[in-house]
């Protein structure tokens, strides 16, 4: 039984690391700021989600896993907010007319 659980945990963590790698590769390969934002924020959020899910399964239902869950929730709340702040500042700095990008 523990073997099965360990395999599942390992799958989750490997999946999370895979998405972290995708985020890093995307950061290098993408052409401009916005596209790079896509790669890093998304892949990292999802990677963190998978790794933490794996850790929760590994822990079972304890206070520690509740703490991990809270960390996960806050990462999922703050990462998009930070991405939004960076994207907006980039947009204001380099696309001077906010109206024209509407089409």
């Amino acid at each position, binding site marked *: 039984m523990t073997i099965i659980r360990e395999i599942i945990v390992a799958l989750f963590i490997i999946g999370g690391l*895979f*998405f972290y790698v*995708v985020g890093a*590769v*995307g950061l290098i*390969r*993408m*052409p*401009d700021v*916005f*596209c790079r*934002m*896509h*790669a890093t*924020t*998304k*892949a990292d*959020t*999802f990677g963190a989600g998978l790794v933490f899910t794996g850790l929760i399964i590994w822990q079972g239902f304890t*206070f*520690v896993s*509740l*703490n991990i869950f*809270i960390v996960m929730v806050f990462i*999922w*709340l703050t*990462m*998009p*907010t930070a*991405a*939004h702040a960076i*994207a*907006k500042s980039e*947009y204001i700095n380099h696309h001077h007319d*906010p109206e024209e*990008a*509407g089409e």
Partner: protein
Amino acid sequence: MRASLKGGIVTLFVSLFAFWIILASRITWPQLVIGALASLLIVLYSLDLIFKNTEKSSFSWRLPLRFVWLCLILIKEVFKANIVVAKLVLSPKMRLNPTFKSIPQPLKKDFNRAFFGNAITLTPGTLTIDMDENEILVHGLLPENIDQIEKGPIQKAFRRLEGDLDD
């Protein structure tokens, strides 16, 4: 007004106290007393911040259910779209077509709008740049990604949360 004040105090206190207990990881009397005192202090300190929310909403059990449903849909969509973007990033020729697009704002409540903006950013391939009462400015890696947001299940789930759409 008075009722909403009391409700706000109780909600904030209970959530802070629950948060403290989870962080403290053990339930003993000193922990509980310190936690209750700290929560009370924070509630008193932020009294003038709590009650800005004037948007009245009648509570029903369907709301949390819809919220959970929304979170499940969001996780599913994030999962699907992450695979698409991972394929895109790892393919030898990245066929990107970065696009800005304004999509109409489907929601009315501020909280839901902020949450929707975050959900758009969480969904890979799309990024919220700016938002006001009428429209949301979205940047997409591919135009299809934006179409997915504009007509996809996430937006429907949000409108259902707001009671705009029946289930």
